[in-house]
């Protein structure tokens, strides 16, 4: 009887340890999501809306998951430098200027991008600040 308890405790501990290892990236992701949400609410929500619905034709919605996926490398540039070119989103053309957010650091951009691309019906996974630094090099 005693053996069973000891064994079950032992294997239980191993299971918990493995489980914890697996979720390390999930914890990182959750951290990005929650910080990203704060940045979104403070800097993006006024135009793009609480649920990424946009504002008329003045600000595009953030729900076009195909656009976000195919332009993932450009998103950091859009946020950091603003946008002044027409965009096709959900088949509609949006051409209002988006302001630049020069004061956001790479980590902020990474977090807010993770939040946007994993909310509003999008599910594009992790995007690290190292990737942001890399993507910012090729802004036009």
């Amino acid at each position, binding site marked *: 009887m005693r053996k069973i308890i000891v064994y079950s405790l032992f294997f239980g501990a191993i299971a918990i340890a493995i489980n914890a290892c697996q979720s390390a990236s999930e914890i990182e992701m959750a951290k990005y999501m929650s910080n990203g949400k704060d940045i979104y609410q403070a800097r993006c929500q006024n135009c793009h809306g609480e649920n990424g619905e946009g504002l008329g034709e003045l*600000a595009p919605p953030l729900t076009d998951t195909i656009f976000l996926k195919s332009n993932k490398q450009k998103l950091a540039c859009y946020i950091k430098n603003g946008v002044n070119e027409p965009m096709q989103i959900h088949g509609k053309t949006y051409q209002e200027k988006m302001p630049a957010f020069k004061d956001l650091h790479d980590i902020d951009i990474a977090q807010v991008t993770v939040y946007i691309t994993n909310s509003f019906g999008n599910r594009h996974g992790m995007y690290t600040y190292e990737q942001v630094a890399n993507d910012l090099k090729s802004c036009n």
Partner: protein
Amino acid sequence: MKKILGYAAIAGFIALGASCTQEKKLPIYGDREAKITKDANGNEKIDTVYKTIPNFKFLNQDSIEVTQDAFKNKVYVADFFFTSCSTICPIMHRNMKTIFDKYKDNRDVMFLSHTIDFKYDKPSVLKKYAQKLGADVPQWQFLYGSKEEVYKLAEKDYLVAVQEDSSATDGYIHQGWLVLIDKHKRIRGAYDGTKTEEVEKLKTDMDILLAEKD
């Protein structure tokens, strides 16, 4: 005896309930003065003169001159904004649009947005903005005017602070009030257009104001 007391209590509660359902009235804001007039018999009468929005003449999004006549006998919501504002204006107009959607078919209700960017927001710019917001209809007037006239109207009459400020993100600073004006051009409420709960309050107050008898 006890029974009588019980009935009295019930009657009391009913009376209390009735007094609570009495018509609610919105306050009238701004300075007021007393005017003493004499009628035909020489009796003195005291009238209260309330603050009203003075007449104005501006160009709207269709480059047509608009005066206060356009708002005659209308209840309207007024605000001050500019099209290139990326901070509070989008929130204000997102919220104002929900009020607009609610009263779209109500001929007693109008909307008025004054731009404070006298350099850039010419009627053609306002027109584009109105179209993109989905509010380019006569019920919502977007008005352009000179700095002196618009800023004076904002600060002296609508009691909204507006200012040019080169250190601000977009070059101007202003308050986000949505001001509720009644059919007699009097201010009946001011609501923070950036807060959804205050905008909901505006909608409730709008209904009270519309139900008000002159």
